[in-house]
């Protein structure tokens, strides 16, 4: 067990970059402003989430109390935590076991396969505990306070908390194994992994949405009455997303009664069964991972290529853009993490199809008079482009993803402006295609005004181009180059988080302006303001792109490790 523990600690260290942070900030005392800015940026965001959930618990408790089911908030929190674990766990298991190279390095060391597996799963679970505690703790603690819960509640909640991520992680692992089994036997492994991964996510999310929203063919009001009158009816309805969360909630709420104990036993029991299943398949996870790590051989095409037909001269920027796109799209880890948003949004728009079986009712008609005002459509579409630039992480990790290969670009006779232009062009081609493809079903389902969508696309392209330039500069300012696993450049990279914060704030501001114009009926100003914003972004990019980028490009020292 001691060996598992030490391996676990070193994996955690890599996962969170503690040594690197200690080296940079404490030993070398350089870039001390970074942790300060990160704390200042993330702190309030985290605080707002915790405070918001604290309030949710209060409101949910009071409403639930009137219906005799105050513990609906417990079920909500548990279900949300388990769904989030299922969703992200799938990525983490894939990243940790299949996209990561460290299994190969661990093999020569005297570890047994179950020890490596246990350490890796523990490292993943630690990350999961941290993230679900943000959601679960404010709600559960406030519930305990409001319900004046006794000792049994608190003890039970600790047990439930510890068990919470296990089952979803087991399911995520099973899905990952299934995917890698299929991928490993095909000779287009990367492609199968990407498409299969996206398919699995679509199915998982789609079925969740379906379960969540599909109601029996009854009058909605009648149904609600029925749910409210039935004992724990609402709790059960919430729990449909992830049924064991109902047992968790009941176990906690009735911790002082046999009914609660029975629920707790059910919940812990099914968790234990899940854990045993995982133990049983552990060898398989491990070896499939190993096979996945041993790339090469199988990917050989053996097809004869004609040199002279491809050896023509391309403009330097286009050449850089092409390589940027290829290097991103050929890595299944990047694709699954970066492009999932382009698929999720249209999927959300499909909710009515799943719930009603048809697309006759526009889900937005409750919010706006129909049709939706054309300038709002324009603004919303432009905003979509902007948000996706950050969500895809392509520009914000563009230099980091070069890693130890950065020496190639730095020794070529190409200026940093051209390098940046190529990278932005490559990122934007992916972003624009992704957004347009996602917008087609959205436009159809929400019956958006075509002119508004087209106008929004044009404004959105301008806006997101400026933004991706700035995000690429951010990554040039603090690239993360010393990775061994390519996936780290994207998943453990703070630049991606900073990008989301910046763009999230911008989106919030733009959304607010749009709302103000909507209320004052001055919506024609929305596109004007967005165009001005795009111009400002370009100007800032232009200024920094010459002043700062050249200096930075010459002084980067991590080109060759």
């Amino acid at each position, binding site marked *: 067990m001691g060996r598992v523990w030490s391996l676990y600690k070193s994996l955690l260290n890599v996962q969170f970059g503690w040594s690197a942070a200690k080296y940079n900030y404490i*030993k*070398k005392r*350089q870039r001390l402003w970074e942790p300060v800015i990160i704390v200042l940026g993330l702190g309030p965001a985290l605080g707002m989430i915790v405070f918001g959930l604290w309030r949710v618990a209060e409101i949910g408790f009071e409403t639930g109390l009137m219906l005799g089911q105050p513990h609906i908030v417990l079920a909500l929190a548990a279900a949300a935590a388990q769904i989030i674990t299922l969703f992200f766990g799938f990525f983490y298991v894939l990243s940790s076991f299949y996209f990561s190279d460290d299994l190969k390095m661990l093999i020569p060391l005297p570890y047994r396969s179950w020890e490596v597996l246990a350490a890796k799963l523990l490292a993943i679970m630690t990350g999961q505990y941290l993230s679900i505690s943000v959601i679960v703790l404010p709600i559960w603690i406030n519930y305990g306070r409001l319900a004046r819960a006794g000792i049994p509640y608190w003890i039970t909640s600790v047990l439930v908390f510890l068990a919470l991520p296990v089952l979803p992680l087991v399911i995520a692992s099973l899905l990952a194994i299934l995917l890698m089994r299929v991928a490993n036997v095909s000779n287009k492994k990367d492609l199968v992994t990407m498409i299969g991964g996206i398919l699995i996510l679509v199915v998982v999310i789609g079925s969740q949405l379906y379960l969540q929203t599909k109601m029996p063919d009854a009058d909605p009001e009648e149904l609600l009455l029925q749910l409210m009158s039935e004992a724990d009816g609402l709790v059960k309805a919430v729990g449909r997303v992830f049924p064991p969360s109902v047992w968790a909630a009941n176990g906690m709420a009735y911790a002082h009664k046999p009914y609660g104990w029975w629920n707790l036993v059910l919940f812990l029991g099914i968790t234990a069964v899940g854990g045993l299943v995982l133990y049983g398949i552990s060898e398989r996870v491990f070896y499939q991972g190993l096979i996945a790590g041993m*790339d*090469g*051989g199988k*990917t*050989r*095409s*053996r*097809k*004869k*290529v004609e*040199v*002279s037909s*491809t*050896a*023509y*001269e*391309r*403009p*330097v920027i286009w*050449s*850089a853009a092409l*390589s940027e796109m*290829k*290097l991103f799209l*050929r*890595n299944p880890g990047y694709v699954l993490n970066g492009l999932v948003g382009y698929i999720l949004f249209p999927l959300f728009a499909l909710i009515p199809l799943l719930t009603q079986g048809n697309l006759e009712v526009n889900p937005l008609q409750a919010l706006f008079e129909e049709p939706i005002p054309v300038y709002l459509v324009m603004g919303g579409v432009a905003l979509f482009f902007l948000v996706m630039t950050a969500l895809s992480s392509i520009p914000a990790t563009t230099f980091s993803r070069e890693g*130890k*290969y950065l*020496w*190639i670009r*730095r*020794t*070529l*006779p*190409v*200026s940093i402006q051209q390098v940046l232009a190529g990278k932005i062009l490559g990122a934007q081609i992916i972003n624009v295609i992704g957004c347009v493809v996602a917008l087609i079903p959205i436009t159809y389902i929400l019956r958006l005004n075509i002119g508004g969508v087209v106008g929004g696309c044009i404004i959105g392209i301008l806006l997101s181009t400026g933004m991706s330039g700035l995000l690429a500069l951010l990554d040039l300012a603090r690239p993360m180059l010393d990775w061994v696993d390519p996936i780290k450049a994207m998943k453990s990279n703070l630049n991606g988080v900073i990008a989301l914060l910046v763009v999230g704030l911008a989106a919030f501001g733009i959304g607010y302006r749009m709302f103000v114009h909507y209320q004052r009926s001055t919506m024609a100003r929305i596109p004007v303001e967005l165009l001005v914003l795009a111009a400002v972004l370009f100007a800032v990019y232009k200024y920094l792109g010459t002043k700062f980028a050249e200096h930075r490009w*010459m*002084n980067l*020292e991590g*080109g*060759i490790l």
Partner: protein
Amino acid sequence: MLKLRNVSKKYRGAERYAVQDLDLHVRHGEIFGFLGPNGAGKTTTIKMIVGLLRADQGSVTVNGFDVEKQPIEAKRSIGFVPDNPDLYQKLTGLEYLNLIGDAFQVEQSLRAERIQYYLEMFEMSHALGDLIQSYSHGMQQKLALTGALLHEPELFILDEPMVGLDPKSAHFFRELMRAHVEKGNTVFFSTHVLEVAEKICDRVGIIHNGKLIACGTIDELRKDSEQVNDTLEKLFLELTEEDDSIG
């Protein structure tokens, strides 16, 4: 062809200079060996020449262009192979070469001709359409070499090129360098093995603890070391001891 004047470099956080007051002049058309034990400062110097590191003091000029003031022009004359070339694993060999060719604006017919020439010589034309991740270490090295020679650089720079090569490839390498200078170009390479330098270099410079302690033909230096220079003699001994890395 290549001039270093008073070049110094100290890494951030380091106590001593990795390279100190280095003066070096590599002439047009020669094969210059940059000789020194491990940790002497060879890689640091080369990184400053090719634009990967910035010198704290002094200046580097390549083909008359200052590498800091006119980096693009300077880089146009250079072909560079690092000691351990890491190449984009998710590009095919041909895509990598085209990326280099596009950056150096190598015109179509020349590009195709040179790619075919080198890859046939290296016996790896068959792998051109495969991803680099499927290449062996040796194949990746050969690809890096082809990339560096694609624009027929006036100054060909290699960092420890003979490490890990079998005797046949080492011999072949020497031929390659020879052929390159015979076309009127210059070769600058580093090594920590005296024997390698002896066989091919027109002149060598010896670097030790970041300082250039001798420069000239091997014969000149040998004479010096026998007669007066104690450290040089010791250094020669040290350098000859380490010849186990060539086959």
